């Protein structure tokens, strides 16, 4: 049996502990993520799914509980550059061109010049933005900016891609196209993806597993395996099994909201 990529054991996160505004964001989270999984966190807003993503990425320290990433602490995994991050906003640096943005992590990680440039070209080809390498972020559409952000996240070959509602701010058409592109990239790179989303359709279409969380305090209430065959394409969305799984997620979400109240 292979080692899990992420193993979370009884993690709790309380913000502002001991103050009047104390909020329990995560409660008793247990989760194991295997290599090459595409796992989505879904739940009502404020349920702590983004917090859970940040706890895995060592951007937030949990109040209690243990996390192992690639058999080491999350902190060590961050120092080892195991994570690629993509946020809802592309968060490109406006003073850098597209190519320079993709190169940012490579510069920080002291890649030799040739490898840096080769890797940048490779990444821009992957997200089909080769012609835009000299453009500045403001010259690109929202969807293109997000593709640059993905290229940047993948440039240094991290083992885990953390995505926090990456397509949340995009229109439906762009979102569907980028979903297909992301699946393609995932198949090519076989990276482990942890994906936070509000959209049931997106979660079911992309994932191998959907984790449904309850409203505050965030707990995992369902863990649904998505057994749709790969490769998936636009036809997948019209598959009967797709509807069944969507319904299952939807019902779990409804349940989670009732529990939260």
């Amino acid at each position, binding site marked *: 049996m292979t080692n899990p990529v992420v193993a979370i054991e009884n993690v709790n996160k309380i913000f502002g502990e001991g103050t009047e505004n104390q909020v329990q964001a995560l409660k008793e989270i247990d989760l194991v993520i295997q290599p090459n999984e595409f796992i989505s966190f879904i739940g009502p807003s404020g349920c702590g799914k983004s917090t859970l993503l940040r706890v895995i990425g060592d*951007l937030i320290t949990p109040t209690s509980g243990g996390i192992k990433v690639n058999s080491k602490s999350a902190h060590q995994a961050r120092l080892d550059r195991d*994570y690629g*991050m993509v946020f809802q906003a592309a*968060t490109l*640096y406006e003073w850098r061109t597209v190519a320079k943005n993709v190169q*940012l992590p490579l510069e920080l990680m002291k890649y030799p010049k040739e490898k840096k440039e080769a890797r940048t070209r490779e990444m821009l080809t992957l997200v089909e933005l080769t012609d835009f390498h000299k453009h500045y972020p403001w010259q690109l559409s929202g969807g293109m900016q997000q593709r640059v952000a993905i290229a940047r996240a993948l440039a240094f070959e991290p083992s885990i891609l953390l995505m926090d509602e990456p397509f949340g701010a995009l229109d439906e058409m762009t979102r569907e196209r980028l979903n297909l592109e992301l699946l393609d990239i995932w198949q090519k790179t076989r990276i482990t993806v942890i994906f936070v989303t509000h959209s049931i359709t997106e979660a079911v279409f992309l994932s191998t597993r959907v984790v449904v969380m309850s409203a505050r305090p965030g707990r995992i209430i369902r863990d649904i395996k998505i057994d749709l065959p790969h490769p998936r394409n636009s036809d997948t969305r019209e598959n009967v099994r797709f509807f069944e799984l969507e319904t299952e997620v939807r019902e779990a979400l409804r349940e989670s909201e009732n529990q939260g109240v």
Partner: protein
Amino acid sequence: MRKNRYEKYIAPVVILVIVLLLWEFLVAALQIEEFLLPRPSAILSNLGRVIVFTPNEIPEDTSELAAQLKANTLIVSVPQNAPTTILKPILSATVLTQFSIGSNKIMLIQGQNFMPIVQAGWFTLKEALGGFVVGSSLGILIALITARWTTTREALMPFAIAVNSMPIIAFAPIMNNWFGIDNPFSKMSIVAIMCFFPMMINTVRGLTLVEPRSLELMRSYAASGFAILFKLRIPNALPFMFSGLKVAAALSMIGAIVGEYFGGPRIAMGVFITQEAALFRFSSAWAAIIIACIMGIGLYIIIIAVERLVMPWHVSFR
């Protein structure tokens, strides 16, 4: 359609000319005294004059012509064979350029206050630039230090903001006392203090107003504090630093000239202006003020040009 790059300057230039013509005309028509408001032509004649030599006969009565030549009128037409006794006021002037149109010879000469004003301007500009460079550099340096050590920022910022809203120029007599009234350092130090605070406050703001997501991104790469400073905070601060520089540039000219109003060497701009005004020579005081304005605008334009070079990606140049 895309406009020609010079086309956008046409309208402001036309407005400037109209305003000058109206000013000239109204001062003459309403018979406003020169000590209240000199005509633009009288102001300009301090810097340069146009002498038109015509093939006309010398008039019987040359007193009016002699008065015009003496009185610094901007454009004077003189018969070509006028005697040197009449031409005396302009004979020693430096000729800037001359050319002929038909049988008229046109000569552009330096006005009698051109050299004093330019020398005074240069002297004061050096004071302003010295203070500007020292004050702005220190402002940036201290801001960088406070960005690195948060406690220094928390300790210094309230004072910086308080001092920035004080009329620092009021300290000019103190500085004159400390460094000596004729010593350019007295004005430079006032200018440096005036430039320091807006520069420091703006830079600190730019270094700290970084998007939280951008910082998270850096943390996810396990970037060092130095990398975050050089690859995120400083580029993020550039637009703020340039607004600081623009404010500081304007303040530096104000600081230098007003500092000189409280006393300074005779060759300083502020001293020249106060002296000319005290002697009721208002048109030359005005001419000096105009040169001071041009120097201020020039400084501002240089900063904008550098800004364009340094950050072509910025919103303001799209």
